[in-house]
């Protein structure tokens, strides 16, 4: 399949491991990516916290650019995904707003393409059988908890993700590549990402709580699909609470034996290589 691709600012900065592994995995699973021409930032939490029209117009600029290619747009970053879905929701629900935003952008929004995140694309379009068939190195010994966080799921009528209180797609994907996925009650709890820089003390407590729960569940790592969660969970837990955190695409890349799959582990802020070495996965 072919999709429009919106990497967003994080995937070209702090979250570059996600971009690199996403591209490798897409190639291997025959998902052809066409980057949106001359994309700009989605505005993230800064826009919706401060100015409603701005928070819709910034993602709308990219949605309109993607509509030129007439393909569904895949948005790996959970924060960008959320802002795209929110913009779509408001533009479809509020005619006055749509007219205002189109006036600002000088272009029409058609609303004809779907906004998708890669968990959904890999689970529903590629399928677990096709993924399993490509696994050359099962992730034996890896015991992740799946951490979905907030922005892929909520609000449910906007994000349209499956089972928003107890999602399973990421768990199934991890199980398919041979990991021993641990069940836990914190799949959809917030890590505090939006206040990570400005109210760090609060966020340290929130991250410690998550890491304690993951350890209690018997996990040896955390798997995420969000660059905010990744940065936060790597940086903010207290030193004795830290454990490796992976983008789910990094682990698929490793399980599929893709070229360059070990490279992204080198740039993590919490080094996952000792764990992977110990489990003989690298």
């Amino acid at each position, binding site marked *: 399949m072919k999709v429009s691709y919106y990497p967003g600012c994080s995937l070209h900065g702090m979250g570059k491991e996600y971009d690199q592994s996403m591209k490798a995995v897409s190639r291997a699973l025959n998902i052809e990516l066409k980057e949106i021409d001359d994309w700009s*930032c989605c505005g993230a939490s800064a826009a919706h916290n401060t100015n409603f029209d701005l928070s819709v117009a910034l993602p709308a600029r990219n949605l309109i650019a993607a509509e030129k290619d007439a393909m569904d747009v895949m948005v790996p970053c959970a924060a960008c995904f959320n802002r795209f879905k929110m913009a779509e929701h408001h533009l479809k629900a509020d005619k006055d707003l749509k007219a205002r935003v189109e006036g*600002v952008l000088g272009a029409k929004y058609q609303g004809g393409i779907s906004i998708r995140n890669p968990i959904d694309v890999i689970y529903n379009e590629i399928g677990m059988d096709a993924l399993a068939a490509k696994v050359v190195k099962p992730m034996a010994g890896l015991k992740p908890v799946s951490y979905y966080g907030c922005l892929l799921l909520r609000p449910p009528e906007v994000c349209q993700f499956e089972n928003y209180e107890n999602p399973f797609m990421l768990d199934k994907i991890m199980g398919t590549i041979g990991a021993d996925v641990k069940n836990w009650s914190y799949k959809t709890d917030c890590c505090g990402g939006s206040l990570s*820089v400005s109210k760090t003390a609060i966020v340290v407590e929130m991250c410690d709580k998550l890491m304690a729960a993951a350890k209690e569940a018997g996990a040896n790592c955390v798997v995420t699909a969000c660059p905010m969660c990744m940065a936060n969970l790597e940086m903010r837990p207290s030193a004795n609470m830290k454990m490796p955190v992976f983008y789910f695409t990094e682990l698929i890349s490793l399980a599929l034996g893709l070229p360059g799959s070990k490279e992204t582990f080198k740039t993590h802020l919490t080094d996952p290589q000792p764990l992977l070495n110990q489990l003989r996965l690298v």
Partner: protein
Amino acid sequence: METFLEEVNKKIHGVPLQACYHCRKCTAGCPAASYMEFNPNKVIKMIQNGQKDKVLSSSTIWLCLSCETCITRCPNQVDIARMMDVLRQMAIEEGRAAKEANVLKFHEAFLSSIKFGGRVHEMLMTVHYKLKSGDFFSDVDIAPSMFLKGKLSLLPPRTKDLKSVRNIFEKTQSKS
């Protein structure tokens, strides 16, 4: 004259706040409630009581993480997350000092970065935030390793049609 409640309801553009029957599910699920001056459901009551100054000057509106757990679990679909957005926007429009000043300064630094290059440059944004907030020393221990790992690029990324992005800021800001 419009009451505070009417003003907020109009901006939320959804289920009116009066639909809240204070079951406190929002507060029970809120990960930041224990740090807040007023719990989310109490803010609804305060808006109904017309306590505008107290609400817009509170830390609560700035400590909301926008995790959207409240709206997800509200049995009456009262959009508390949107309400918090609306309250922050009203506080900004009225030129009120944010009780949690650094939270707003971070948002401002983030938006400046978009205006500057169309895309956010994490290093410039962080420097900008530090200058605004005076918080020079946090995370200085992490920065060098990020830089060595190539996570912090020196060259700011650019959207070519920068004019179109800056135009969005100009036009949406002149509206309010």
